Every structure is written in C-alpha cells, then in structure tokens.
C-alpha cells in the first residue's frame, strides 16, 4: 500500500491541493509534491482529473477469522463498584451486537462485585466474572493476562473498553499481545453495513480532525472510548442473561508490579465526572483567588468545579479539575464556562454536555459557537449577579 | 543590521532569546510587582551555561568576552531589564578577579561563578560616595593574617543574593583614592551582614541592598591585586562593564520598539491602524534608527575591547551614554504611542520606561561620563593626537 504520483500525467493544475485534509500537497515546478504524513485517505485521488495520483490498495486482506464472534465490553470497577463508563459502553455495545446479530458479553474483573444482574438488565447476554481478592489491586498485569486468556479462548470479534487511566494503560498491552489493532478514545462506533467491520471514529490533532479507522485483518477489533461519550441506556429488569464465573488462576496470572498505596487527592464534594452541573473557569478568571467566585456559584448550584488547561498550568487549581483533551471528558446536564475561550482541546472534553452556558467578554471567543446560551460580558459582574439571583429565589 | 556573528555567538543569542521568551516573559510582570529576586531564572541561565560565557575555559567557562556578554544581556533585557541586570552584576563582580586575581583566587571562585552555582557582586557605592567614589569611608585595617573591614556599602546590585563580593575599602585613609584596595568577601563571613533592601522605581526584579561590615575579618589572601590598587581595579572594571550597560539599554529599547510597532499596527483609531499616521511613523522611524545606532556603537566598543585594545575609557563611556539616553527616549516614546493603556500596569510598556531610567544613572551617571569623554578630548588635543 502506498501512494504514487505519476509526474508525467500531472499537469500541475493544483486541484488536488485543497483536497488533502492534512495540507500535505504542494506544487513545485508545475508538479505536485507530497510531504511526509500521508494517511492514504484517497481524497487527492478523487480530486485529480488526470489520474496522476494513485493509491495502491493493500493486497486484499486475508479474511479475518470467521470464527471470531460476539461483542465484548470490558467493565471496569473500583472497590467492587462498576464505573459508569461500563454502562455507557453496554448501551452502544448492545446496538453493535444487534446490528451484527451476535451476542453481547461483559468482562468484569475485581472483588466483591454484585452488579452482574444489573449488567444483564442493561443489555448483556453473558457476564464473564472473575472475582478474587487479588484483583482489587495490582490490576495492570493481572487484567492484561486475564483478558488475553479469555479473548484467546472465546474469540470475540469486537472488544471495547473505557479510556480511563486503567483502560488506556492495559488495553494497549492486550492488543499488543494479540497483535491486533486498537483505536484509542473513540467518539463514534458503528458497523459498516457492507463489510460488517467496526467503524471507529476518533478525534486527532488535538480535536482538529476526526478520523474513521478500521481494523480489517486482525481480530478482535479493539477500541477504547472515553467516559461520557455514549449515554447510559435504561435497564430492563426482565432481561435474561448468563453469569459465568471464571476461575482466577493464581499460578498463571501474576503481577510483576506491586501497588503499595493509594493517595486520594480529590477534595471537591462532587466528582467532576459524576456532576450534573459543572461551573468551569479559564484563563479569563485571572488568578487563583478568583476561583473562589466560581466556587461560590458552584456551591449555590450544587455544581462541581471545572477548569480549562491554563488555570491548571498556572497552578490556580489542581489537575483533577481539568476538562479537555488532556484532562477529563464530561457530559453534565449543564456546563457553565466562565472566561474560557474555547480552544478545540477544551471543547473536546465538554461539547457533548446537554446545555452549555458561556460567559466571556470576547464576543468572538469560539466557546460561543458551542454554547446554548451566551452572555457577552465581564464574568466578575455576571457571576456575582447570577449568585445573587439564585440565592434570592 | 547584519553584525556577522559567528556560529557560537548566534547560538548564544538565540538561546538567550529563548530563555527570555519562554521563562522570563511569563513572570516578568509578577517579578516586578512583587520585587522578587529571579532565582528560578538564574537557575535556568546557569543550566543553559549562560554564566560560563564571560569566564575563560581554564576555569570552566566558555571563554567569551565582552561582546558575548553584551549579546546575552541585550536579549535578556529585551524582555526584562531587572533580570538582565541581576545576571550582568555577577559578571561585574567577577571582572576584578578575572583581571587582577591570583591563580589560587581564580581557581577557587571562578568555576562556581561559571556554573552559576554562586552569584557575584561588586560593592563600591556608599551613602557619601556616589559619583565621587574617592569619598568612600569603608576601611580595611591590616591585622595579623588579614584585614578587618568596617563600613557600609549602599545600593549594591545582587546584595544579599550573591555569595561572592568584591568590596572596595580604604587600607590607607591618608592616601585617599590611592589608599583604596579591593577585597573578596564571601557571604556568611562573620561581621558581614545585609541592611536595607531598597524599593526601586524600576528593575524591581533585581536586588539592591546595603552591605554592612562590622569588624569583618577577611583573610589576607582575599585581597585582589595589591594594597592601593582598589581604584585602578575599579576604573578598569567600569571601562569593561559599561558596554554591558549599553547592551542592557539597547535590549530594553529594542523591546519597547517592538511593542510599540506591534501596538501601532493593531490599534485602530479613526478607522485606520495608527501606524498609518505620519506622526506615529516618524516616531517609530527615529526610535528604530537610534536603537540601531546604539547597538552598532555598543557592539563596536565591545569588539574593540575583546580585540585587545589597551585603552577604551572614552569609547566605553560613549556607548553607555548614548545607549542609555536612547533607551529612555525610546521607552518614553513607546509609552506615548500606546497612549492611555501604555500608562497602565496591564501593559509592559510603563515598566520599560521605569526600567530605562536607571541606565542613565548607574555605573557612572551620564553627566559624569560626558565629562569623562570631554576630558579625554582635551587630553588628546593637548597631546596633539
């Protein structure tokens, strides 16, 4: 596979230049020239009227083993309680499995988990449960080995997991052992109606570009999905399913790393990811002390405090409050952005919120493009007014 | 203008600029506001080998000269003069050692100055001795094994922060200026303490402090040169360091000029950017011309010194006077171009104007230096040169 430019055919018309989403083409001496970084997306081939650009298709992939069947969701837990991302993945996993006409299985490792029936209510056909005290800590190595064993045994065609710090840490290792493809941080998962392949869409270039990725020849097709990207479904208590307890083999599944201690450093009352309302501040807040004003508004509204990247970089608020590409992805009912300009990296972490309110003194700030309601004005006047109004009622 | 820098000089200039823009720019307003000594930046400069450039290779330096120092100071000062002067003062404090120090003294102190592990400072000024340096009252009395220093130094740059001080004191009061000697005094020497920390108009990131000596015994081997050489050391030192002040002024003026051009392009009044107004264009053209002239003179003098010129008192004074007057004028005009906002602390330009003033005052006030230049002219005429 590769791209060939036939310089004899190229007339240097430049039609192709604007077709390249990465801006990699340029005309030098009346001929088109391609810079490094081509993803072979084919846009330029279509744009060329002279058949001068040719994408050589990969030799037709050997069909990935048909023996692979079923959609799997890895359900992460902490202290025996499943994370909400598990349920979010279940709802999308259910749709994928239905489209493919196959079963949806949930894999869950941990200790003292009693939500298996609930997983079935949310759409699982089977729940593979590996429950052992050892699995409550030292998760990375144990989970990697445990999941690889199960995949090798049951051969699912799709495996999806939450892009949490644990998921992003051990799922790539599973993929590497299985020598299969993995797409990180997907925001869209669909089944291609023609090929039955999983179409995995994800942001790249800091959210500037979306790419749709497939894994054609290797199985399973694996993706991680950030929390809050998909919506949790509604449970159906009548659903039937099977809970399969998997033995934890202490001899085979061991950990080289050791968890010595855990330091809890979340101080806020409401966890950001679980909050219904988030009041968030950006560079426009000016300094650390001014965050007190936002905290006050958050207090009145029962909201959690969020932040864009600059206040975290400047040490005004701890990293655990950061929303965006390198922080948390949130999807509250209401997101109030105060003094946040709305860089794509920040939008990537909050734009799926149900309602977005933007308060900024720059009417051209990109945050207004995603805002449901915008107030162009000084946040130091608007926020106190909101606090006053909300308190009075 | 193309000054034909060699490879090392280009590297130095671009690295100094990078440090200024990446490390100093984000904190300069805060350093100014809090009057805080820029230790973090001193560490950055040290790690980047910027303190090595004025120290010979045999003492772990990189063997540059006056010109290299000027390039670094100019780039730092383009962003913040307060930081630039804290750096330059360490060079100033080490010059006497470089020129008149014994091999032992150099081996003992220069490597630490080169690595930036310790800062140096130079202490001459006293409450009664500013332009008239011969009026100093601090004494160094010969005792067995050393000298006992008594007196107070005033307005000492890097005072309290530096660890190695070159102190000028009288070993023979009767001989006046010829009775002065230079001593190396380390911080934490018993009897040596720090007095008042000055609150300044500008260059507020730098430390300016009193040094207090009360029966401070320094060992014999800490004298620089011989007894009575204190003022020779001082005059030589100031001749060498004045292009550095020139560079500080050039950098500051360059920073103010760039800010003014930038603002004039963006500021719309009467429907057009103000840079399209002839009156603004004239100001900017004069500012740019003077900055370039000041730079050319400063560089020329620094290169003359590095090329081994024996005497350069007059030229060094010219560079300092011209560049500092230019800095003051350019910074003032830049504030004028900014108009109302230029007067506000939200913009860096008022700081540049405050920072500029000191360059006309310290290391020889421009009035004293003009008389120095005139004196040289007279001497030359008399000698029919």
């Amino acid at each position, binding site marked *: 596979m590769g791209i060939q430019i036939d310089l004899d055919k190229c007339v240097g018309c430049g039609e192709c230049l604007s077709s390249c989403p990465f801006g990699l083409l340029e005309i030098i001496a009346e001929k088109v020239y391609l810079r490094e970084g081509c993803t072979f*997306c084919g846009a330029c081939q279509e744009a060329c009227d002279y058949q001068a650009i040719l994408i050589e298709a990969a030799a037709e992939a050997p069909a990935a083993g048909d023996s692979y069947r079923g959609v799997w969701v890895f359900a992460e837990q902490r202290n025996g309680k499943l994370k909400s991302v598990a349920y979010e993945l279940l709802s999308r996993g259910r749709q994928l499995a239905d489209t493919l006409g196959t079963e949806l299985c949930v894999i869950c490792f941990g200790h003292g988990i009693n939500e298996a029936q609930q997983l079935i209510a949310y759409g699982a056909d089977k729940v593979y449960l590996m429950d052992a005290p050892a699995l409550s800590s030292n998760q990375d190595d144990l989970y990697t080995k445990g999941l690889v064993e199960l995949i090798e045994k049951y051969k699912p065609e799709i495996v999806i997991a939450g892009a949490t710090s644990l998921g992003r840490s051990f799922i790539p290792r599973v993929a590497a052992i299985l020598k299969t493809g993995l797409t990180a941080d997907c925001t869209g998962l669909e089944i291609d109606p023609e090929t039955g392949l999983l179409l995995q869409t994800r942001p790249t*270039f800091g959210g500037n570009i979306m790419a749709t990725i497939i894994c054609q020849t290797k199985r399973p097709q694996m993706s991680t999905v950030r929390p809050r990207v998909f919506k949790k479904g509604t449970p159906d208590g009548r659903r039937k399913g099977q809970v399969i307890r998997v033995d934890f083999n202490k001899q085979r599944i061991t950990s080289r790393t050791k968890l010595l*201690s855990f*330091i809890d450093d*979340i101080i806020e009352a409401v966890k950001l990811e679980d909050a219904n309302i988030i009041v968030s501040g950006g560079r426009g807040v000016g300094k650390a002390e001014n965050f007190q004003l936002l905290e006050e508004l958050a207090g009145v509204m029962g909201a959690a405090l969020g932040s864009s990247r600059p206040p975290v970089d400047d040490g005004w608020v701890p990293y655990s409050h950061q929303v965006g590409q390198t922080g948390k992805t949130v999807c509250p009912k209401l997101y109030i952005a105060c003094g946040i300009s709305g860089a794509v990296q920040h939008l990537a972490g909050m734009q799926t919120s149900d309602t977005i309110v933007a308060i900024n003194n720059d009417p051209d700030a990109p945050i207004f493009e995603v805002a449901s309601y915008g107030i162009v*004005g000084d946040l130091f006047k608007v926020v106190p007014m909101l606090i006053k109004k909300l308190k009075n009622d | 203008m193309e000054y034909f820098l060699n490879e090392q000089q280009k590297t130095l200039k671009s690295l100094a600029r990078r440090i200024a823009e990446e490390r100093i720019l984000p904190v300069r307003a805060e350093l100014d506001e809090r009057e805080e000594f820029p230790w973090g930046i001193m560490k950055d400069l040290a790690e980047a080998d910027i303190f090595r450039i004025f120290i010979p290779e045999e003492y772990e330096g990189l063997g540059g000269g006056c010109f290299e120092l000027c390039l670094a100071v100019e780039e730092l000062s383009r962003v913040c003069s307060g930081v630039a002067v804290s750096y330059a003062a360490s060079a100033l404090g080490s010059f006497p050692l470089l020129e008149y120090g014994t091999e032992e003294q150099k081996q003992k102190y220069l490597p630490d100055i080169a690595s930036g592990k310790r800062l140096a400072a130079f202490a001459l000024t006293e409450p009664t001795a500013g332009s008239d340096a011969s009026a100093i009252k601090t004494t160094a009395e010969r005792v067995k094994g050393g000298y006992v220093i008594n007196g107070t130094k005033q307005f000492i740059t890097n005072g309290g922060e530096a660890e190695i001080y070159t102190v000028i004191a009288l070993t023979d009061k009767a001989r006046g200026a010829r009775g002065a000697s230079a001593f190396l005094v380390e911080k934490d020497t018993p009897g040596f303490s720090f007095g008042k920390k000055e609150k300044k108009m500008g260059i507020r990131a730098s430390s300016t402090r009193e040094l207090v000596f009360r029966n401070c015994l320094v060992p014999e081997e800490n004298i620089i040169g011989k007894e009575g050489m204190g003022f020779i050391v001082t005059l030589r030192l100031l001749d060498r360091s004045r292009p550095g002040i020139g560079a500080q002024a050039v950098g500051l003026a360059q920073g103010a000029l760039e800010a003014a051009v930038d603002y004039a392009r963006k500021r719309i009044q009467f429907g057009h950017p103000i840079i399209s107004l002839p009156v603004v264009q004239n100001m900017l053209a004069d500012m740019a011309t003077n900055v370039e002239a000041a730079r050319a003179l400063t560089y020329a003098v620094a290169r003359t010194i590095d090329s081994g010129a024996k005497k350069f008192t007059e030229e060094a004074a010219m560079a300092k006077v011209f560049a500092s007057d230019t800095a003051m004028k350019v910074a003032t005009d830049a504030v004028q171009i900014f108009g109302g906002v230029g007067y506000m602390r939200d913009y860096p330009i008022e700081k540049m104007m405050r920072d500029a003033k000191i360059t006309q005052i310290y290391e020889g006030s421009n009035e004293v230096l003009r008389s120095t230049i005139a004196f040289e002219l007279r001497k030359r005429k008399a000698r029919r040169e």
Partner: protein
Amino acid sequence: MNIVVCLKQVPGTTKVNIDPQTNTLVRQGIKNIVNPFDTYALEEGVRIKERYEGKVTAISMGPPQAEEALREVISTGADEAILLSDSAFAGADTLATSHTLARAINKLKQYDIIICGRQTIDGDTGQVGPELAEMLGIPFVAYVSKIEEIDNGYMRVKRMVEDGHEVIETPLPTVITVVKEINVPRLPSLRGLAKARSAVIPIWTAQELGVDKNMVGLSGSATRVIRVFFPQRVHHGEILQGDLESQANSLIDKLREAKIISGS
C-alpha cells in the same frame, strides 16, 4: 543505569489552523517540534542519570528530518540519539510503531528504564508505551508523576489515576509513560548545543533492524484510516441581550424552563 527515551517529532499544534475555504490544515509556518509530552520523558531520563549515573539514549522513528528533534534532545541532555528511518516505516499505526521501537531497543541490548511521554499531541493515542512494554515482555506503568526511588533492581513511582495517585513498585527493566506534572524540562545549554551540532546520529533502517517488512509501516499496521473529516459545529445557541440583570434573569428562567435547575 541505561535509560532509553522514545520520542516523536510532531507539528507544533499551537499554530494548527484550519483554512476556512478549503477546510484543510494550514501547514505554512508550522514548525516541527519534539512532542511536548516526550520532553518530560527526556528530562526525567536526564534527571535519573544525574541522580544514579548512567546513559540516556533517545530513539525516534520518523522521516529523515526527525533528526532535528534528536539533535534538540542531545542539547538538553541525551547522551546518544538514534533515528529509525526507512520508507518501509511510513504509515505505521501504534502496533507497527511499537514493534519497530522494540526491535531497536533490543538491538541496544542494555536497557533498564524506558520512558515515553503519555501521548503525542498529533495522534493522541498513548498506546505506544504500553504496546512497547508488551513487545519487550517487561512491566509497564502509565501516567507516572514522580519517580520516588530506584534501588536494587526496583523502581518506586507515583502515578496519576482519575481520583488520586497510586504508589507502585516495579522491577527493572520497565517501561513507564510520564505526565507533565513530573518535571519542568530544562532548556538546552550552550555546551549541549555545541555537542548537538557535532553529534553523529546513526540512522537505523529496516535492514539494520532486521525487521520483517510486513511487521512495520503501513503493511505492519492492523488499523487503517479510511476517512478523515472536520468536526462540524453547528451553531444554534443564543446570545442573551439586555443589561446585566436582565441577562441573568433570562438565563435563570431558561434553565428553569428546561428543568436543568430547580426553583420557582
């Protein structure tokens, strides 16, 4: 202590702009930079070396111009740098990239700690570190924010997770990925820049690594990008007008109507 730092040259995204006419990335004036997260990896490698002695080797896979990035890291403390460059490596996904890096690290033979940045700013996957660890068959710790101690073949680190920090002990050799909280990378030094200018940076090709061409580059990639597009943002919001008080009132009313907040 033999420390290997893996890094990538990426377009400096702060200037990534989209041409509104053509909807493509504007590349003019975009300088390539060392992936910012990798600079923390390098800095940490250099600090480990300064604390425990050893050698820092930087490895990058990329086109020939990625040599610039490697010169830059020599100026900030790497002892040696190796560029993995071959037309066969082009178009690699994380699987093929980590395979190539693993072969190069195996060729180095001696390694105790391998450090990567948490992710790149262009691809954003964060997968190369963990995949590399598996291909080398050694332990892995992600999101390290502090190296507490290295002693007797073990390393104790602090790593960031969603709600706090974990202290983890791992035997060496190991792969870690680091977050920006771990350090402030130093700027180059003059001596470092001089060293970087004259440094010889070997280029290892597919042949030198002895890799199967079907395991690297596009051929070795399990994933394919089949479509790229720009996220569409449809603006259907409303800018609230009026004076401060009426803006506040109208916002609160609207939020109440939509039952987003409670109250009268």
